[in-house]
């Protein structure tokens, strides 16, 4: 599963785009993805918030993930 990372999550992961190997346990929902990411990158749990965008729209934890979705990790935004 290809995932885009931005801001501090990009620094934590070390790359802006990563093909993550979930050892055959591909997350089916946004909530599951967040849980798996926090297990893989403990630094994620320390952030003020962590959102996910699916096909460039904010997605709640219960949104289901499809194989060819564009999935992005959105740490706390700080524009302006």
């Amino acid at each position, binding site marked *: 599963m290809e995932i*885009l990372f*931005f*801001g*501090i999550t990009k*620094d934590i992961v070390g790359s802006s785009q990563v093909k993550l190997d979930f050892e055959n346990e591909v997350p089916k929902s946004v909530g599951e993805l967040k849980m798996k990411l926090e297990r893989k990158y403990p630094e994620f749990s*320390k*952030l*003020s918030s962590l959102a996910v*965008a699916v096909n*460039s*729209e*904010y997605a709640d934890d219960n949104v289901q993930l499809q194989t060819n979705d564009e999935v*992005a990790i*959105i*740490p*706390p*935004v*700080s*524009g*302006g």
Partner: protein
Amino acid sequence: MNKIIEIVSSLDTNQVYAELSHPNSGGICVFFGAVREFTNNEQVTGLEFETYEAMALKEMNKLADTALEKWGLNKVVIKHAIGKKEVQEPVVVVGASSAHRSACFEACRFLIDTLKETIPIWKKEIFKNKSVWVSAHP
């Protein structure tokens, strides 16, 4: 076009009146965000912005539409700069153009407040000996 939405490497502040001018507008309110030299008494040497551009443009369009409708505006501008910015450089411009002044003031404040909450843009403050992603940690 009643909205101008852009993510750019460098903001042109001169165009904003022309972009918001409209025969039915008596009031135009504009907010510019700029790089401030000090954050909590620490000297900032610059800011660095990055964005998830496709999503940011989508969210900026939604934000503009919400304001256009809610305040019956004639025009809206939302522009954000990305990349490295130095002290005093403008990093964001939002503006609203309306028949009367109350609407453009309220809408302009809404635009910048909501932009800071929802648009996927990230800011790193660069100090002499460190750099910090703003708001990342509680």
